[in-house]
């Protein structure tokens, strides 16, 4: 598994340093994650070394990993998608309702429908941002309200309960393959596919170009509209898949499912090294950031910090991450100027 920086500059000798900086970021959060897990396990060995502990470590963050990966792709294009929480909630509720209203529907079909539904919701966002050239933050703020409202209107005060869903589906949510939760495996496959796409395909690289300098990308001839549209569709589809995971994992879906997850996803991406100004970062980083955020939630009570302080810790992490980003960017620019002056 190679973590690579995307800011590779063809200056001899310097590219190694720049690559190292990028690798350093993902490595850094991985180290932070390891430290948190180690500290918590030292205090209470069952945090990691029990059947529940190991499962929860990988299972609960899997849902946020999906949303964070989609969010990272959108942020890399210098946009933001605040509606993912509402999309996730709608998709989770849709999954439940499909099982109730259309009995006998095979599980893969339900999953596909939910993902397509999320993609369609993302398409609405993307079309408004790409074609109407409206700031993504405002659009997705509006759709956050609108989608959540539709969810509440549809669900009313009813919930989808675990008894309404087929046992095989719930088994997906809590089952394991070789001691690794099934959902975590699926999330990892999606993550690896996304990372490969972002790093090794032309489409993926173009996202970075668009995020670094949208005007230059446009002038260069990149199909900016199409790429931004695709980014939002991917974000919506991943949120849709996350909704399916949510229904499978928790079994009970209310109309408030997923509320607040959008800020967690943005926070995870930012902690993971994706710059809010676009063009920098990797989906690996966002995924590790998501795992770190969710793990801290569980580790704090064990470390003796009342979990009321969890939000504050997350806030400090986010601020620390962007300060670090800024420091690295300033240092990198200084190095580039030096290299240019010396060459």
């Amino acid at each position, binding site marked *: 598994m190679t973590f690579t920086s995307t800011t590779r500059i063809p200056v001899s000798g310097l590219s190694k340093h720049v690559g190292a900086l990028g690798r350093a970021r993902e490595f850094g959060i991985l180290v932070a994650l390891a430290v948190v897990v180690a500290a918590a396990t030292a205090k209470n060995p069952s945090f990691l070394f029990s059947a529940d502990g190991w499962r929860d470590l990988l299972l609960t963050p899997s849902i946020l990993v999906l949303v964070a990966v989609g969010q990272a792709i959108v942020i890399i294009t210098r946009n*933001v998608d605040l509606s993912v929480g509402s999309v996730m909630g709608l998709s989770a509720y849709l999954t439940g309702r499909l099982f109730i209203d259309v009995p006998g529907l095979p599980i893969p079909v339900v999953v596909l429908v939910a993902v397509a539904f999320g993609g369609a919701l993302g398409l609405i966002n993307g079309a*408004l941002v790409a074609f*109407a*050239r*409206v*700031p993504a*933050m*405002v*659009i997705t*703020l*509006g*759709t*956050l*309200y*609108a*989608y*959540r*409202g*539709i*969810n*509440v*209107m549809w669900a009313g005060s009813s919930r989808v309960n675990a008894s309404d869903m087929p046992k095989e589906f719930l088994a997906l949510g809590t089952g394991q393959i070789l001691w690794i939760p099934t959902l975590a495996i699926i999330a990892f496959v999606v993550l690896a596919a996304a990372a490969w796409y972002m790093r090794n395909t032309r489409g993926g690289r173009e996202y970075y170009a668009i995020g670094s300098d949208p005007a230059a990308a446009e002038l260069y001839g990149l199909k900016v509209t199409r790429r931004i549209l695709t980014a939002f569709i991917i974000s919506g589809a991943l949120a849709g898949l996350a909704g399916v995971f949510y229904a499978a994992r928790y079994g009970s879906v209310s*109309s408030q499912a997923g509320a607040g997850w959008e*800020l967690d996803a*943005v*926070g995870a991406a*930012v902690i993971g090294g994706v710059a*809010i*100004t676009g063009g920098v970062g990797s989906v690996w980083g966002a995924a590790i950031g998501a795992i770190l955020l969710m793990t801290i939630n569980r580790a704090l009570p064990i470390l003796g910090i*009342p979990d*009321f*302080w*969890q*939000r*504050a*810790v*997350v*806030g*400090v992490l*986010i*601020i620390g991450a*962007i*300060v670090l980003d*800024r420091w690295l960017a300033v240092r990198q620019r200084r190095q580039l100027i030096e290299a240019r002056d010396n060459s």
Partner: protein
Amino acid sequence: MTTPTTTTNRVAQDFEKPLWRRVLLTREFAIVGLLVLVTIVAAAGVRGFSQPITLNYLLLDIAPILLIALPMTLIMITGEIDLSVGSMVGLASVVTGIGVQAGIPFEAAALLALLVGAIGGAFNGFLVTVVGLPSLAVTIGTLALFRGLAVGLLGTTAITDFPEMWSALAKAKIAGTTIPYISVPFAVLFAIFVVLLHFTPFGRGIYAIGLSKDAARFSGVHVERTKLILFILAGVVSAFAGIYYTLRFGSARGDNATGLELQVIAAVVLGGVSVFGGRGHLYGVVAAALLIGVLASALRLANVTSDVINIITGVLLVLSVVTASVLTWLQKTRRRPRRPPRVAASTAS
């Protein structure tokens, strides 16, 4: 039609056009018109809306949004944003509650809350101006941080013991009318902000920063100092709104006003302020906040559930920015010359 909102094409008000066109054909006036229209329709169509008491509840409900929308407008005109205002309301609420519970007089606890608001705002401003971080990322972090502090300090308990005099004042009406007392501080703040924005060099500087930060800097505007002051103002006003919120509901909780920042931003953007910065007026924002309040109030009286109200708010928000964008595009295509301008014959020879 006034100021287009694209980054490449923003010009000052077009003084060739007559005044009536400059005032009437603006986004802000459209929102005011919509507000009047919706109020009339609601008064006529919704039973119970035209009672005087409706105005009272309406203003009591949207007072925090109205208050915070004032500094938020100024911040967004400079092109920045502050997502931490809702959490600051909660933190100020908690600080007030803890102070009162610890036995210090309410006035002192409220002042302490205002101080906390100033410090929080200064923290935001410091990270944005001195360290140079993007305000969206910073305020997402401080949103979590302030909320975390609020919840951490108080846990899940709520403090509900506040002096009767202040609680009553928060909910009381001005003698003879149904307008709540909170309108007085709001009116004062509104006047201050209008003067600040439109009648001082500081305010012109705010618009300049939004239009072009570098040009503003070279013109002598203290960009960093202006932004820092605006963030501190946002913190203090949010804290004040927090004190009002606590008194009005009689309860200081860590999760007070969760999600308030989104409602404030929705009102500000609906009121004609461009997210890119450089344009916007306070009266449009106030009209937009009142519009959302009137809509929510009327729909609630008509027994429409709050989820539909949220859908309408969301759709309104999207429509408002899409129409602005479409209008700008129309303007640009109309301004393009129909045939290429003839090059003047050179007189050099």
